């Protein structure tokens, strides 16, 4: 389980994380939902220790990530998996070597067993037979699935997904969504998904955290969010252009700007 306490992160004048408090439970898929620029990626980078918060703590199994040494952080990361938005496959390695990479670096597992493990992971994502291809030979959806196979190859306790379905066709979106859900159930792990895609979010989420310009404006189960009476939440999940969430966020009054500038 991961617990976030009073997390603050600022970039220049922008508060990307504004006193966040939330938890990500084991065995559950939690989706961090929000519009672009709402601080989803920033929160994810702090959860993984890729970036240090200005204030506050991130507890993973009771240990505060923000106080750990690099070596301790690396030990925890060996039990984390992450699927990057652009898949982040190593472009100079074929698919097999990409997936085998963490095993080769961190374990002394024999080659024939590595081969078995990689084959199993590829079967799981439905891409057995692509071992010898290079990442550039795959479509975006296939790269995501390979990225997922690589993310789970060390049997992590936590998996992070950054926009796993953005830019994919509806079928690939469905496939990835189902994989996320199935994996979470089969391994009984903590799954954390960053997304702005409400449709697929409702399908895969157990819990939802809704971010709005650096603040959590709602959190709860899918049902709770769906039935929320908060105007901002309603506007976001129905994708309405008009409402309490303004379409623009410029400081200047529009009329002032066009008339007097």
């Amino acid at each position: 389980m991961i617990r976030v306490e009073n997390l603050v992160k600022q970039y220049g004048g922008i508060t990307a994380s504004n006193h966040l408090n939330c938890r990500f439970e084991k065995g559950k898929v939690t989706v961090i939902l929000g519009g672009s620029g709402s601080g989803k990626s920033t929160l994810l980078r702090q959860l993984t220790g890729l970036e240090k918060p200005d204030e506050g703590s991130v507890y993973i199994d009771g240990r505060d990530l923000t106080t750990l040494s690099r070596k301790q952080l690396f030990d925890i990361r060996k039990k984390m998996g992450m699927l990057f938005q652009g898949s982040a496959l190593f472009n100079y390695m074929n698919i097999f070597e990409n997936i085998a990479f963490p095993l080769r670096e961190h374990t002394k597992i024999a080659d024939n067993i590595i081969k078995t493990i990689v084959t199993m992971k590829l079967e799981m994502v439905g891409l057995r037979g692509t071992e010898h291809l290079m990442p550039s030979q795959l479509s975006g959806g296939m790269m995501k699935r390979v990225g997922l196979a690589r993310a789970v190859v060390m049997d992590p306790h936590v998996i992070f997904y950054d926009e796993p379905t953005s830019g994919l066709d509806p079928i690939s979106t469905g496939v990835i969504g189902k994989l996320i859900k199935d994996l979470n159930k089969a391994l009984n792990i903590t799954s954390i998904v960053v997304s702005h895609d409400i449709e697929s979010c409702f399908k895969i989420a157990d819990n939802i955290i809704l971010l709005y310009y650096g603040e959590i404006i709602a959190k709860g189960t899918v049902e709770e969010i769906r039935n929320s009476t908060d105007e901002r939440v309603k506007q976001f999940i129905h994708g309405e252009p008009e409402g309490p969430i303004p379409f623009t966020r410029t400081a200047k009054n529009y009329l002032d700007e066009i008339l007097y500038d």
Partner: protein
Amino acid sequence: MEIAASIGRLTLYRIQVLGRSGIFIFSAIVQAFLPPFRISRLIKEIDFIGSKSFLIIFVTALFTGMVLGIQGYYSLSQFGAEAALGIMVALSIIRELGPVLCALMVTGRAGSAITAELGIMKITDQFPALEMMAIDPLKYVVSPKIIAGIISLPLLTAFFDLIGITGGYLVGVNLLGVNEGAYIGKLVAAVTFKDVYGGIIKSLCFGLIITWIATFTGYTAEATTEGVSRATTNTVVLTSLSILIVDYILTSLLL
């Protein structure tokens, strides 16, 4: 006032970048000597920076030596000193042209490619991906390139020297009729250990400079396609200038 302030800001920024690149190279070198050692990564980089440069170095060296042969013969024959052609070719190449031309050719071939490679890794999030797999990107990606540069450049330079002197020999002895014994004999007698040592020191420094600038520029490139192409150009320009300036400094120190 405005101008003074912006010059000040720019200077400050430049100094910051220099400081960061210093920390960068220092950590990369320290990391190279800490376990785990990835010998296969190092061999791959030596192959890329070193072995794959042999042909281009061969051609550069051969023609440089041949031109020196013709030019040297022309100058020396005015004093009737053609017999000293071997010395002239050898000293020019070993002390100056070998290390410098070698470094410039490797910059164009490998330096720009290294920056582009790192830039692409950056655009596609491969550095945070390594971080998330509990692997230090600096140690995994940068350190082997730096070490490979420091190992490869002296070897390439030695090869350049050999081919260059041979080129001078081909033109001088075979084409222009300089006495064979004089070319080789005087050369062997005149080239001192200090000349060779100076050339090696230079090439070691150039190996470091090439890989340092190429990796730092790539690692800090703006993560867009334009950012990476700009970084690649910057690498070639910055490295070439640094090589020429450092060559002057080293020459004046070593003489």
